[in-house]
């Protein structure tokens, strides 16, 4: 056997980790809670706590061991669970927040920073339990630290549930009001989806779908800094070279994620689910998706050409990553959360990046309008109308869209919300002042598009 030591490759990897923020963004353990159902919320909460503590007992320890041995940071260890509206369907009580509190206590006990799945899937209609869960979201997010909530209000197959869209505008406002003293932190933990995926490892939208196994290890990779660094060598080159360079880089990044996923799955004795091939930025300098778009030749993210640049990036990330992993899933693509991306924040502050441009960008990226602060006096109907627009993009384009809006209570355009930590900070962006109230008041369902009839 020959031992070929390619020191250039080794130094390249070490440089990616040390200087370009290469990391595995999250190992998320998905856990089914369907067997925790009970007719009393307290009994159900007890079962949820016990099961999560048992299943996730070694998650953090295993994650840290892999991190040490391979020398690659695994930034977050997290949990996702069955949408709680399903688990709670038999509960008699109206208030489901005790279930969120049990999730929060379990997350703290096992040492994970977030747990996703305080969720309801209402793309076609509400069950009684869905309504109770949605009503419990504001209180739950205001009184827990680690719990994330999501609601799926539409799909390409079912169309848009406009009653749910209207309801979620009110819920977002209520979340903002209840956490107004913390710059509307509650809203950072609430995602409104169209075409939600069942194996997403990223927060705040992670949940463990009903089509999933008892438990699964899902891994989210990252690496905007690595892609940015690679593009520094292609200045002035045609787009073919840019696309090839991104594909090559995404391949390497994803292989690291696949390795971590396989190891974690073996050590935890839990089946490997998917690798999510995502470029997920953080507020750190050098870890920005916006800066990648600018490296392609744009003066500032948000100017004309940004959508095309993002389309290329999103596609090349998938093409490079898909060969590097045996199972790809989740959201897979480029994320464009404003508050969590240093370049997006700068572009928004400079006035180059607007809500309308972000909406256009979401047609070609992997998610949607993410972590965007809007004026505190934005009405629930306007919030709902923004949700409806974004969900319509998801529905018609057969893609996932997610919205996380932060009404900055007491603040207006020109102010900044400081959410802190991984959530970063967001300049308040203007919304259209004209009313959408009569549109949102209609309710009912927007029918699924023609191409939903694919059978």
């Amino acid at each position, binding site marked *: 056997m020959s031992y070929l030591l390619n020191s250039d490759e080794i130094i390249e990897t*070490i440089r990616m980790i040390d200087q370009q923020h290469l990391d595995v963004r999250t190992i998320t353990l998905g856990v089914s809670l369907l067997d925790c159902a009970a007719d009393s919320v307290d009994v159900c909460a007890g079962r949820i706590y016990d099961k999560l503590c048992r299943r996730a007992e070694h998650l953090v320890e295993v994650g840290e061991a892999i991190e040490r041995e391979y020398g690659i940071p695994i930034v977050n260890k997290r949990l996702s669970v069955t949408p709680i509206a399903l688990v709670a369907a038999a509960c008699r009580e109206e208030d489901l927040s005790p279930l969120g509190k049990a999730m929060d206590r379990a997350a703290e006990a096992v040492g994970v920073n977030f747990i996703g799945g305080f969720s309801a899937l209402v793309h076609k209609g509400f069950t009684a339990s869905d309504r109770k869960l949605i009503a419990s979201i504001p209180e739950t997010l205001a009184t827990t630290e680690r719990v994330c909530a999501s609601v799926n209000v539409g799909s390409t197959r079912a169309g848009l549930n406009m009653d749910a869209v209207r309801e979620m505008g009110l819920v977002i406002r209520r979340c903002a009001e209840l956490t107004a003293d913390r710059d509307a932190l509650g809203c950072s933990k609430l995602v409104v989806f169209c075409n939600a995926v069942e194996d997403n490892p990223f927060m705040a939208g992670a949940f463990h779908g009903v089509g999933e196994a008892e438990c699964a290890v899902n891994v989210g990779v990252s690496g905007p800094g690595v892609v940015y660094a690679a593009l520094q060598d292609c200045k002035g080159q045609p787009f073919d070279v840019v696309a090839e360079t991104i594909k090559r880089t995404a391949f390497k990044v994803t292989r690291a994620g696949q390795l971590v996923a396989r190891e974690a799955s073996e050590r935890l004795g839990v089946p490997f689910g998917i690798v999510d091939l995502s470029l997920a930025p953080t507020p750190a300098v050098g870890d920005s998706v916006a800066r990648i778009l600018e490296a392609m030749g744009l003066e500032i993210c948000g100017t004309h050409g940004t959508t095309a640049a993002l389309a290329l990036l999103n596609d090349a990330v998938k093409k490079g990553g898909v060969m590097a992993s045996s199972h790809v899933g989740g959201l897979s693509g480029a994320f464009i959360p404003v508050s969590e991306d240093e370049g997006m924040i700068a572009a928004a502050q400079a006035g180059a990046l607007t809500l309308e441009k972000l909406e256009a960008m979401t047609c070609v990226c992997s998610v949607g309008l993410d972590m965007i602060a809007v004026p505190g006096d934005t009405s629930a109907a306007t919030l709902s109308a923004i949700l409806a627009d974004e969900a319509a993009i998801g529905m018609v384009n057969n893609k996932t869209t997610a919205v996380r809006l932060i009404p900055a209570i007491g603040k207006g355009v020109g102010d900044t919300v400081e959410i802190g930590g991984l959530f970063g900070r967001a300049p308040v962006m203007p919304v259209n002042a004209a009313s959408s109230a009569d549109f949102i008041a209609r309710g009912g369902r927007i029918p699924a598009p023609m191409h939903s009839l694919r059978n």
Partner: protein
Amino acid sequence: MKAIVSVFARDRKGITAYITAILAENGINILDISQTLMQEFFTMIMLVDLADCPLDFGALQKLLKERGAERGLSVHIQRQDLFDAMHKV
């Protein structure tokens, strides 16, 4: 288990001797070695076999880091699989 040891430092005499002695003391066999100077920085990469090393990975990692720091060297050890995964199809 095979691992990659990487050493970065400002160049001076005796770095290789110092590090390889520590490896030998701990039953670690060097399978391949490569060293270069990048500007004034000494960079050494070694492929090592840990089969006969009595220490567990975490303890070895700590030992190399501490002994390296005594001489102002940055010493890391990582499992080889990561590099293979990222650079080989």
